[in-house]
Structure formats: C-alpha cells, structure tokens
C-alpha cells in the first residue's frame, strides 16, 4: 500500500513540477531608459525665471520638460530641446504674483517616453 501511494505521489509530483508555465514577462524598460534629474533649483530674479538641475547620465536623453504647477493645480510646461542642458531660463514667463509654484523636471527620449520625475522644488512669487 505504501509503495503504491509513493508511486502515485511521485507521478503526481513529476506532472506538476514538470509542466511549468512558459509565459514570460515583457522586456522591462522603464528603469533603464532615462535617468532622473536631481538637485532641481528654481530661481526668480525680477521677471527672469530659471531652473537648474543635474543628470548622472544623459544616455537616451533627447530633451527635458520643465513643469510649473500653481496652487490651483494648473500646470504649465516648457520643453528644453537640448540633451546636455542643465539650465533653463525664461524671461517672458507670466507668473502670477502672490502665488506658490511647484517646479518639476523630467527627461524625454526620442520616441516620446518621459523619464522619472525629479523631486519638486518650490518657488514663491512675491
């Protein structure tokens, strides 16, 4: 009886573990395509708005998107068409006075994939 049970258990185990699911996950790309901008700092000097940032690697980078979000949630974006840029300056940006802005930045590659968003920096317009 024990031998018979052992034989059945062995056959069962062989069948279960011998038939693995061969479906594979798709190729994971999102962690490796673009680096995350760091050390983001926004400055307002009179009417001149500028942002600086750092990139550990500019591989696959085609440009950058600078995002300004005010307290109402309205978002304004600017595209920087230079993969080596670490600064964006805009003298004609219409910023509302007495408003708090959150500045974020991310890299973009040549097919339009947005990399990880940077940590936010804040800007208060007097």
């Amino acid at each position, binding site marked *: 009886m024990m031998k018979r049970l052992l034989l059945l258990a062995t056959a*069962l185990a062989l069948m279960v573990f011998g038939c693995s699911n061969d479906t594979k996950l798709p190729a994971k790309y*999102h962690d490796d395509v673009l680096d995350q901008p760091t050390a983001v700092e926004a400055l307002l000097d009179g009417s001149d708005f500028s942002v600086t940032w750092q990139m550990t690697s500019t591989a696959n980078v085609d440009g950058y998107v600078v995002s300004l979000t005010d307290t109402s949630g309205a978002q304004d974006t600017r595209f920087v068409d230079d993969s080596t840029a670490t600064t964006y300056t805009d003298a004609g940006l219409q910023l509302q006075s007495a408003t708090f802005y959150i500045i974020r930045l991310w890299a973009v590659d040549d097919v339009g994939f*947005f990399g990880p*968003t940077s940590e936010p920096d804040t800007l208060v317009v007097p």
Partner: protein
Amino acid sequence: MWRLQRIIVAAGMVLMLMATGATAQGAGFQLKQDQVSPGQARLLSVLYPGLGQLAAGHRQRGTAMIVGHTVFLVAWLSSNSDFGTHEDQFDLESAGYSSLREGGSFENAREAWRRVSDRKDDMDQAHTTRVTCAALTAVLYGYNLVDVFLLGGVEPPQDRRMSLRPRKIGEAPGLALVARWR
C-alpha cells in the same frame, strides 16, 4: 468551455446509467441484476473510471472512483478556464505596458509593470492549480486502469458475512439482510 463540461457530465451520467443493474421495465418496477463479464467491466472502466468496478459489484470502490474522477475533472476544466482568463488579462496588461514605451511616462510604466507582474503571479498560480488538477485526474485514471487490469478490480466480489441484497418481496422491490456462516 462550459459546454464541454456539460457534455462530459452528461456523458458520465449516461455511462453510469449503462453500468447500473436496476432498470425500469413495463408497468411495474423490476429489479434486475445484470452480470457483466470482466471484459465488459474493463471497457466500462476505460471509458470512465469506476464504472467497471461498480458494474462488477465493487460499489464502494466504484462510487469513490466515479466521484473522485468527476470532482478532479470538473476542477481541472474550471481551473483551465480560470487560467485562460488570467492569460487574457496578462496579455492585455503586457500590451498596455509595451505601448507606454512610446509616449508614456515612467510613473505610468512603473504602475503598468506592477499590474503585469501581479497578473503573471495570478497566471502562474492558476497554471499550478490546473496542472495539479490535470495530474490528479490522470493519476486517478491511471490507478483505475491498474486496478482493473492488474489488481483484479473487476473480479466478482467475495461474499461478505453480512450484506444487503435487493430482493423482490411479493411483487414489490425490497432489501434483504443476508447472513452467512461457514
């Protein structure tokens, strides 16, 4: 898938009816004990596990095999259908993740990847369940064949000391308690 399950269950019921000894004939209910040969009983067991044993008079073993095989078969068909659903969801999420490569964002891709990974885990679990059910079904069917071809599972049962036997009492069907002394 459910249509296939219904067909299999219906076929099983027909085979069980073929294997039973009691038949209704004419105006009155008549008890009839058909004696099946070992060859016929083996054929029945090849068609559906337990039928041959049941027809040969091994009621407990035959019933246990029929019930066990039916349960495993239904569980296998259900888990197979469940796996198909998880596979469809996985394919959908994978396509969604891949499409974000062009025009998507890192945050959306990361969230899509988490969903793809979850669907893969669900699919792997469903696969293990269906393979286990299929293996149990196959093992029970294999044991059924070993039983009828090698272990004498369709030989007439030895008379027990005490047993219940169908008997006609007058014109009505009934049961008789039979005791034997040696």
